[in-house]
């Protein structure tokens, strides 16, 4: 366990200088802006085609399905256009992910190698002062974490933001009165996220520091296992580990409860908004002649609008922890 001299292991502190760390990481990803531009364009294309494709449903319902006519050819043609839009979106999604995976893996490889180079040049005293376990975890946990974020979180954050803005804009466009209902629910959702998120983060930090203690003990006892056996110290080691392990378990159970709870809470808040929307949409349709195609498309959107928010709140946690990890790596490099 981290004694007075041991630095905390595995605890995810807040990143100290987020902007600087991110821009430095991006430089590892790619030196030229071209691939990043490509990723962004693909991203934009995939979001637009997804939103646009589903919006086309409104006219298909109003002009053909619910119009009383029997223009099957016209229906088929509109549907074909929709298929085309979806295909483009699909290709764009793959293009974006493939580029990011390549950049991410190469970037982390470069990061690992530079870190190792740096390690070779550090004075011996550095190794005396820093436990091996801590240094090891910079190479594996931290580097991996950074990799995951580069590949997924950043992209997913951007696409969630775009998606959210797009959905809100389309819903306002379809029927702004109905949007007021969603706006209230969204405000409530955000408050719930904030409350849950705050608690979840606190418990998560407790969990991480307990995990650091457990991992440190595992590292130490297994590396020194031969000495443990030479002094028949096995039973004491087991007893000490049990204490740490139980403390971690208790912390993890709490942290885990809050983070797992977010999913059903968010999902069902969206169901509640679906219920409100259905009722008010029905009323608007009866009283103000709101078109049914619009209502159907709007309902679909109202179910989706919670997803990007959920994504953003989840990705922010990983992003923060990864940036803290990246800072620990850069710390070594800057010695």
């Amino acid at each position, binding site marked *: 366990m981290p004694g007075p001299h041991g630095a905390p292991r595995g605890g995810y502190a807040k990143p100290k200088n987020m902007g600087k760390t991110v821009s430095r990481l991006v430089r590892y990803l790619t030196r030229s802006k071209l691939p990043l531009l490509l990723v962004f364009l693909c991203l934009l294309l995939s979001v637009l085609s997804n939103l646009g494709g589903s919006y086309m449903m409104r006219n298909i319902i109003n002009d053909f399905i619910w119009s009383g006519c029997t223009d099957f050819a016209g229906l088929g043609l509109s549907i074909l256009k929709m298929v085309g839009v979806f295909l483009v979106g699909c290709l764009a999604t793959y293009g974006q992910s493939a580029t990011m995976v390549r950049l991410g893996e190469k970037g982390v490889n470069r990061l690992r190698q530079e870190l190792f180079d740096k390690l070779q040049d550090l004075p011996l005293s550095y190794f005396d002062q820093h436990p091996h376990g801590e240094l*090891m975890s910079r190479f594996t946990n931290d580097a991996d974490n950074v990799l995951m974020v580069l590949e997924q979180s950043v992209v997913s954050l951007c696409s969630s933001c775009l998606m959210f803005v797009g959905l809100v804009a389309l819903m306002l466009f379809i029927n702004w009165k109905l949007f007021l209902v969603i706006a209230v629910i969204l405000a409530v959702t955000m408050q719930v996220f904030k409350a849950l998120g705050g608690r979840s983060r606190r418990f998560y930090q407790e969990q991480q520091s307990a995990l650091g203690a457990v991992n440190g003990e595992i590292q130490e006892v297994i590396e020194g296992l031969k000495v443990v056996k030479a002094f028949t110290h096995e039973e004491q080691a087991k007893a000490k580990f049990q204490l740490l392990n139980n403390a971690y378990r208790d912390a993890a159970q709490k942290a885990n409860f809050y983070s797992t709870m977010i999913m059903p809470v968010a999902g069902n808040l969206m169901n509640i908004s679906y219920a409100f929307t259905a009722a008010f949409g029905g009323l608007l349709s009866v009283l103000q002649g709101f078109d049914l195609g619009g209502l159907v498309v709007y309902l679909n959107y109202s179910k989706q609008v919670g997803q990007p928010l959920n994504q953003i709140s989840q990705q922010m946690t990983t992003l923060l922890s990864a940036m803290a990890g990246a800072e620990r790596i850069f710390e070594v490099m800057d010695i």
Partner: protein
Amino acid sequence: MLFLFLTHLEGYKKQAVLSPVLIVLEAVCELLLPLVMAEIVDTAIPAGDTRYIFRLGAAMLVLSAVSMACGVGAAKYAAFASQGFGGNLRQCLFDKIQDFSFADIDRFSSASLITRMTNDVNAMTMMLAMGLRMLIRAPVMLIAAFTIALVLNARLALVLVAVVPIMIGVIVVLMKVCTRLFETMQKKIDGLNNVLQENLVAIRVVKAFVRGNHERKKFNRSSEELMQAGLNVGLRIIAIMPVMILALNGATVAVLYFGGKMVMQAEFDLGDLQAFISYISQILMSVMMVAMSLLQLSRAQACARRISEVLETEPSVQDRTGPAALPAPKGRVEFRDVSFKYVASGTGDDVLSHISFTVEPGKFVAIVGGTGTGKSSLVNLIPRFYDVTGGAVLVDGVDVRDYPLEELRGRIGMVLQTNILFTGTIRENLMWGRPGATEEEMLQAARDAQAYDFIMALPDGFDTQLTQGGSNVSGGQKQRLCIARAMLRKPSILILDDSTSAVDSATEAAIRESFAKNLKDSTVIIIAQRISSVQYADEILILDDDHIAGRGTHEELLRTNAIYQEIYRSQQEGVQE
């Protein structure tokens, strides 16, 4: 893997059952929503019945609220069950590894044991925490939504017959490929860890011999292999998402076309069509979820296999059960025609072959020889760190395999070649030698090992905190602490495996003197490189390439033994330079 889950859920069975039940309830409530919505579109709106719209809306609200309550309950039980399982598994692994013999440790390598205990256990716990929800919710959603879709319009449900098999086919193929690639990747991670750990442990050697560039190349190769493995997995896995979205959108479009035609011909209601589209996307999303969680499952499966490997290992050195009549500790050590090889190395070459010698109680015996001549292996056989492959090692006339391990190792004080101290105070570390020792005995051991003075010079004395691996004291100080730890044991046999290398000759002589004074009945066996460390020994054994190439006192060997003469000459030259 299932077996692993079931056997380590002890104490959390109730939660492990309740959580899935609540998840099913939650899913069912959610699935009823689109049906109510269809009623609004098809019945309430055409009739202009606003009160009916309100009633239906209220029903949807109640359903959502119940669903949310179930979801929160399920999350709670899942968190308790999964983390409880993780804790149990971790403890079980830790206990198991404590029973490993040295050969077992060598076979797995400590780096790999550490990854298994940390990353692999965590991956499995996460699998249970997150995967359980998906793995149960998704199939329930799938079956229920499919049933409703069939009831709504069986003809339209044919679309699913076309789409679902394609989806499943793509997923299965991708999964098969990825499972294998994940395992490769895990091996590369182990490889990288190994290189890294070697370097950290031996950083002094690397620097002393200017091996930096060589190590760099080795690491870069490892790192690039890991990158390649990561790319292999990554580029395939990301194909899943677009394929799934394509299938989802394709199915929606198909339903819209065929269903739209039916509505235009007045064979189907618009509200039902809207509900049907909801269910279709629900079904395909569920298939996707199942796929995702199966993918996680496949990763967890690789982890489970690696954990089971550890749990299923029978320790190669088995403690004997039942009491035995044991002689009082005297310190007599006898090797009777001993042969030994490391099974782990697999080369089949004997490290020691047909070694026989006896050390009488209270004698001081030294073992010298070049690297790789089996000196360490030889002394490691005495506390039964490894079992002999032929012959027998006897302590006080009894085969070491007939001792309970605790009794045998209690008689032996061992200073290993790799000096390891643990996080904690110096006092705590020394007390490892004999947990019941008095303060005075501990101080005496420190004095005997010539460690007292430097300990007292530290700001906190014996209460000084050592960091992991004892990295805040120098190499020589570490060796002296390790010797003190072994001396505190008051062993009848004291073994020092090349553990005075970083101590200067004068200090070493003082330590040797205290052996003679305070451990005069104990047998002392040392392995050393320096002639000055061994020349006062009662007997010196020379090991050369798996056998004893000479034995005798310093003077005798100097006269008769070519190898000893050579070692002596080379060290004398060193002195003169």
